[in-house]
């Protein structure tokens, strides 16, 4: 009797059962490609796995985590990652908003502007890093060339060409400029989509009420753009925390501008210390999760 009922349920499932059945392939897929690697990462972080030493794998508990907390190179990498995040995320938002407003203006060559917005976004990150590394090269770079020209025209300014990659702070600046250039077009694309959902009637009504352009921007555009901004910010912040390609292609002096992702790569791919690098990656994972959590709270809070 029970068997019969089970067969009935499969042949003629209820709404809920059907829903679960249809979702199963997706759930299995997600477990395989998301949950499994994350779990295996967490498991590895509790072991001593150093392939290049040829020593047997052994369980070490929280040793890898404690080692990280006492590792000055780890803290420098965290500091650099946070600097890049706090500079380039707002930077890309401001530049991206400007670009989106420009691309949203009704003029003849708008299509061209929109197309050129895609260009930095379509370039691979490593290319951007290599291109900007050349831009900032002390002998052949375009930035020093401009500085030299200005210095010749206006000697009173006292400008001097810099050896950018000899200084940790100038290197960080160069990395941030390259990152903002690369990522603001992605911001602009999402914000442009947001701008286009704002009904024109709102602006017309504001015009009738005699609101200035600035008031319209502050009172209509900005508030209605907040949902798009939050989505763009979540993506941008997460990629900033994972910054690798651009800083990797623009090495400053020594490892002074190393980011967390670069330090993980060094320990895993170069030193083959998979236990320690897994623990570092778990730190980065927690950082990303915390960021997403804060943003999501804010999105929900905004909706209520």
């Amino acid at each position, binding site marked *: 009797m029970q068997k019969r009922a089970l067969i009935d349920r499969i042949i003629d499932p209820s709404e809920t059962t059907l829903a679960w059945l249809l979702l199963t392939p997706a759930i299995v897929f997600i477990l395989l490609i998301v949950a499994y690697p994350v779990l295996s990462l967490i498991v590895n972080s509790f072991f001593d796995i150093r*392939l*290049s*030493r*040829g020593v047997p794998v052994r369980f070490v508990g929280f040793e890898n985590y404690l080692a990280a907390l006492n590792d000055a190179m780890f803290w420098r990498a965290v500091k650099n990652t946070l600097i890049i995040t706090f500079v380039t995320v707002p930077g890309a938002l401001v530049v991206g908003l400007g670009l989106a407003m420009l691309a949203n203006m009704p003029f003849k060559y708008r299509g061209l502007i929109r197309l050129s917005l895609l260009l930095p976004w379509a370039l691979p990150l490593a290319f951007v890093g290599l291109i900007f590394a050349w831009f900032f*090269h*002390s*002998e052949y770079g375009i930035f020093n060339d401009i500085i030299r020209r200005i210095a010749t025209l206006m000697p009173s300014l006292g400008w001097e060409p810099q*050896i950018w*990659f*000899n*200084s*940790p702070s100038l290197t960080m600046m160069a990395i941030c400029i390259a990152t903002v250039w690369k990522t603001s077009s992605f911001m602009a694309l999402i914000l442009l989509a947001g701008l286009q959902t704002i009904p024109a009637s709102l602006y017309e009504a504001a015009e009738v009420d005699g609101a200035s352009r600035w008031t319209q921007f502050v009172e209509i555009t900005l508030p209605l753009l907040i949902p798009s901004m939050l989505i763009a910010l979540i993506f941008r912040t997460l990629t900033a925390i994972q910054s690798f390609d651009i800083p990797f292609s623009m*090495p400053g*002096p*020594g*490892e*002074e501008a190393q980011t967390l992702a670069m330090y993980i790569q*060094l320990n895993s*791919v*170069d*030193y*083959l210390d998979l236990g320690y690098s897994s623990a570092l990656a778990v730190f980065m994972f927690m950082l990303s999760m915390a960021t997403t959590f804060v943003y999501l709270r804010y999105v929900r809070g905004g909706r209520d």
Partner: protein
Amino acid sequence: MRTMFRTIFVLSAAILLAVAENAFAEQTTTRLKVYIGGQQRPDLMRELFASYMAVNPSIKIDLEIGGATSDLHQKYLNMVLTAKDTTLDVFLIDVVRPAQFAAAGWAEPLNAYFGSSTALEAAMSHYLPAYREANTIDGKIIALPAFADSMFLYYRKDLLKKYGFQPPTTWPELANMARTISAGEHNATLQGLSFQAKAIEGTVCTFLLPYWSLGGEMLRDGKLTFDAPKAEAGLAMWRDMVNQGVAKKNVAEVGTDDTRKEFQAGRVIFAVNWGYAWNHFESGADTQVANKVGVAKLPAMDGGKSVSCMGGWNWAVSAFSKNKAASAALIRWLSSPETSKQLAIRGSFHPVFASVYEDQDVTKAIPWFADALPVVLTARPRPVTPMYKMVSDALRINTNTVMAGVKKPSEALAEIELRVGRAVR
């Protein structure tokens, strides 16, 4: 009807035959995949493999080309071999890596592929001793030498002659000559000395050259021995080159091939570089220095002796290869005096056999190879340890930061000691 059956029969027989033949061919052909770096003359290697395949028709060799620097080359191998991937059969490894490959169990020990232990000893005795030893870890032959390399002092013969100088024997002497020539030439773009201080593998040698010259050692029997005053004197010598204007201010941006390009463009009087540069200087497409290049032993520190840094690459068989015997046979051929001679004549790769340096065809093609042998023989290996990359990073990162002016030599030395200590612990 009957003809139709016959047609079908004949057709199916033909198909069966074709399939069988194919399967047979699959069985007798062994495909080997060889991995080399972009700077190791893939064009030349392809020709070598073609001549091997012509004599061994059952072998089919595919070439995979990796990164152009030793670091990028190794990153790829690290990933492929960590995953125990079976696709690569044979690869080139840098002379600094056999210890790591032995510890990780990535290279098939080659001892068993020589037949007998007397045959093994006989074969190994022909190699230059330093290369034989670099590839033998705890009695296991991890790889066979492909070609040797050393750092040399390249100089502008024409400029030194003009000012009546002989090649310098000490670094301060070199600095004086460079200053005299620069002052006399009135050429703002002419640098005295180009050497490498970018955070690359070659910069490990930049650190070690003056340190070794003063008699310093890095590791003895796997234990860290570090002579801080000698290291500090070495770094100070390089810093002085920049402070005196002999080397340029942005030397921390200069890598091996930057030095090669600057010298080739005629903008450098003295350059520290590896063997490969000579071919570019003499016959590079846009060279400004053809027939103006001299090669000499590297200068010594005041009161020290002349040393060079040992380089070179070696052929290894992957421990995960499915065709180990065929791979071992291939690399024994690749590591033979005949192949070494070809590589020397065609690509100015340094031979790994003393006899090849004196071969008439070789000295005719590259006259200075006869004088190169003593340099190659006295070149010193970088510290041998499975954790080589950590030791290398400690040295190159700190040399780079000192040359960039970010760290004082004393701070850098403290960090070197800490990080090397951590690596060999």
